[in-house]
Every structure is written in structure tokens, then in C-alpha cells.
């Protein structure tokens, strides 16, 4: 709490009073920079760790309350920030402003300059390692393995086809059986009930050969009698019999 208050006091004080008591040597020593800049006209601004102000360049900050000469080091940075960005710096993928800041930091910080040089030199060694070539029989062995692969693929494909064909045949047989069974059952369901007829019994009745008077009477027109007699015989005697009313 006290630290925060002191820090705020320093911050407000530095803005309001340009002649705020400065211990430049100690502050620059704290921030890892050397004392070599001219003092006249420089503006003293305290910076806070983690504080960023959009639109303003970052100042080197080590802990709250550190006073940095912003006019002299407008693009400088902390060592930790340098290390974070170092990967992109080596790959040369940093934006212009960042690149300048990194270069400035290298010029200011001997430790980071040493680290940068060491990394670059070691990477040069790795990158210049000559490539190893495949052995003489590499292609031969690969060809053999590829041939095996082709054969196995072909046999797998053939086996797959045979399996599919067998499964298809079995499935069609099952289907046929099912269809046949279904048809048989359907036939049974829709068939008409069998009608059992009683046995035919022949009744033998002797034909009545006595001439019927009514028939005889109708013959008076001159027609022969025998066809009529035959018809009567076929149709049964009852239908043509006539009983004389009493």
C-alpha cells in the first residue's frame, strides 16, 4: 500500500514538477543502462511495470517508480521483453518499430547483445550442417516394400470382392427363400375353403311308360308323339305330369 502511494506520488510529482529530485545515476543503473546522455532538455518520466499507454512508445521499466530518460531512450525495452521478441528478431519477422527497439536494446545491453550473438552463431552452425543422404540400398528396399504393399492391397481388394460376392449370394438366397415362404403363406391365406360334397346317391326309379292323356290329347295337331315323349323322359316325370282335377 505504501509502495503504491509512493509510486503515485512520484508519478504525479514528476509530471507537475519538472525539477523533481532525480537520482539519475542510480536510476539508470537500476534500469540497466549506462550514464552517457546529456542532461539538458531531457524529460524525466517514471514508468510502471506492466503499464502501457497506447500511442506512446514503451520505456524501459524494471519496477514501479523507476525513472527513465525518455528523450534519450524512447525506443528502449526491458531485457525480458527483448528475450520474448528475440525469436522473431532472429527470424527477421518483426515490425519496423520493434526492430529498431531491439537493435537499440542490443546497443545498450551487453548481456542481451551477447545472447543474441551466441544464438545467431549457434544457429548458423546448425543451419550449415550438411544434409545426410539416403544409403545406396534405400531405393531398392523401398521398391521392395512398395511392391509388397501393392500386392497386399490387390489381395485385400480381391479378398474384399470375394467376401462381398459371397455375402451377396447368401443374401440373395435368403431373400429368395423368404419370398417363396411368404408367397406360400399368402396362398394359404387366400385359398377358398374346400367344399366337401356329400356322396352322390343314385335313386333308381323305373320310368313310367304309361301314356299321359294330356300329352296324347295335344298330339291332335298331327305332330309325331315320340320327340315330346323323349323330352318328357329327360325332364322328369313330375314336371310334366298332370293330375286330373277331381
Amino acid at each position, binding site marked *: 500500500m505504501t509502495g503504491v502511494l509512493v509510486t503515485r506520488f512520484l508519478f504525479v510529482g514528476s509530471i507537475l514538477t519538472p525539477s523533481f529530485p532525480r537520482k539519475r545515476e542510480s536510476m539508470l543503473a537500476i534500469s540497466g543502462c549506462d550514464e552517457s546522455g546529456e542532461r539538458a532538455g531531457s524529460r524525466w518520466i517514471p514508468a510502471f511495470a506492466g503499464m502501457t499507454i497506447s500511442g506512446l512508445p514503451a520505456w524501459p521499466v524494471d519496477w514501479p517508480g523507476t525513472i527513465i530518460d525518455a528523450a534519450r531512450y524512447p525506443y528502449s525495452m526491458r531485457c525480458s521483453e527483448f528475450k520474448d521478441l528475440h525469436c522473431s528478431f532472429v527470424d527477421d519477422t518483426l515490425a519496423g518499430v520493434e526492430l529498431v527497439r531491439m537493435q537499440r536494446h542490443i546497443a545498450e545491453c551487453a548481456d542481451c547483445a551477447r545472447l543474441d550473438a551466441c544464438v545467431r552463431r549457434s544457429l548458423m552452425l*546448425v543451419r550449415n550442417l550438411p544434409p*545426410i543422404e*539416403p544409403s545406396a540400398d534405400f531405393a531398392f528396399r523401398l521398391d521392395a516394400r*512398395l511392391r509388397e504393399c501393392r500386392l497386399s492391397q490387390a489381395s485385400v481388394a480381391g479378398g474384399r470382392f470375394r467376401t462381398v460376392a459371397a455375402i451377396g449370394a447368401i443374401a440373395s438366397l435368403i431373400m429368395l427363400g423368404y419370398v417363396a415362404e411368404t408367397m406360400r403363406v399368402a396362398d394359404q391365406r387366400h385359398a377358398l375353403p374346400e367344399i366337401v360334397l356329400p356322396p352322390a346317391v343314385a335313386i333308381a326309379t323305373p320310368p313310367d311308360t304309361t301314356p299321359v292323356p294330356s300329352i296324347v290329347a295335344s298330339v291332335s295337331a298331327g305332330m309325331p308323339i315320340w320327340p315330346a315323349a323323349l323330352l318328357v323322359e329327360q325332364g322328369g316325370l313330375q314336371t310334366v305330369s298332370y293330375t286330373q282335377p277331381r
Partner: protein
Amino acid sequence: MAIAARKTLPALAHVELVGSTVRERLRTAEDSEVVSAFLSGEERAFSELVERYQTRLLNFIYRTIGDREKAEDLVQEVFIRVYRHLHRFDRSKKFSTWVYTIASNLAKNELRNRSRNPLVLFQTITKNWQDEERPLQFEDPGNRPDDLFRKRDIREKVEEAVGQLPEHHRNVFVLRELEGKSYEEIAEITHTNLGTVKSRLNRARNSFAEIIGPWLG
């Protein structure tokens, strides 16, 4: 698929072309075109892919696992897998990334298997290399013997230093420094995000510089 391939590389689909012409065309074609040609039935296209990638993959796997013989076996395995599964390859992506992903996975598996069997370690292998087995011909025969010795010594140290990096750092390091892959490609190959790649690479570089630093003088 075959029609698309013919559209991409029309001449390759015609059988009547002379073999040398096809090979020349394949040599100058992009990876994606060679892949299309292979998928449309041109077997020679696969040889072209092997020709293009065998050395690169061998170096990548060798630097990752540190065993040359095993590295060659793994490179062959990569090509077998490519041959079997090329029809599944998503051609909207880069072929090289796909191939390196397969290689990276195989190398990772190999290292995992080794960690279960502590008798085989990278350092053990590199230390036990016999002179005649050494894969690198680092030396120029015109150099003086003491120069040759120094170069060989440095090369050994460099390889040892690479081998001392943690596995996931080494993988990223080799892909970036030896294979020249972009951060995005490395992220895809190693199945990590861009931030992780950068952080691992940064650490790997610093560790490597720390290890090799005393030898740089």
C-alpha cells in the same frame, strides 16, 4: 477425381507419352500436380515424390531421433503410408505439411518407444557411432587434418546439442532450423498453436546456444 487430375496435368494421363517426357513434366510440376497425377494412375509420380522428399525426411527424422538406420526405416514407413493413404489426403492443404506430419508422428512414436526402453538413447547412439558409420561427410578433402578434426568435432557437438534438447523443443527446432518450415506449418505438423511453437522455438534456441556456446569460443 481422374478428370480433375487430367485437368491439372493433362499430358500425364496419356499413356502414349514417352517416359522421359512424363518424368520431365513431373520434375517441374508442383507437389499437388504430382499427387493428382499419381491418383489418376501415373505410378511414376510416386517415384517423383520419393525423390523430392526422401533426403529431407531422412534429415528431419534423423535429427529428431538420432539413429540413422532407424531413420531410414521410418522414412520408408512414411512413404508406405503415403502410398496407401494418398487418396485420403486433403488436396486443399500442402502435401509437404502432410508428409512431415506423418514423419513427425512416427518419430514421436519411436522416441516414446525408446523412453520405455532406456537402453537406447539418443546420446548413447551418437556416442557409439563408429567412424565408418558416420553419416555426414562434413569435410572437404582439401582441408588440413587439424581442420578436419576440428570440423568433425564441432559437428559432433552440434548433433549432441540437438540431441540434448527436450523432445518437443527438438522437434520444433529441427523443423524450423533444418527444414525451414514456417511457424504455421510447424504448428500444423506438431498439432500445437502458433504461440506454443514460438515459445518452444525460443526456448530451444536459447538452450541450444547455451549448450553449444562454450564450443564456439
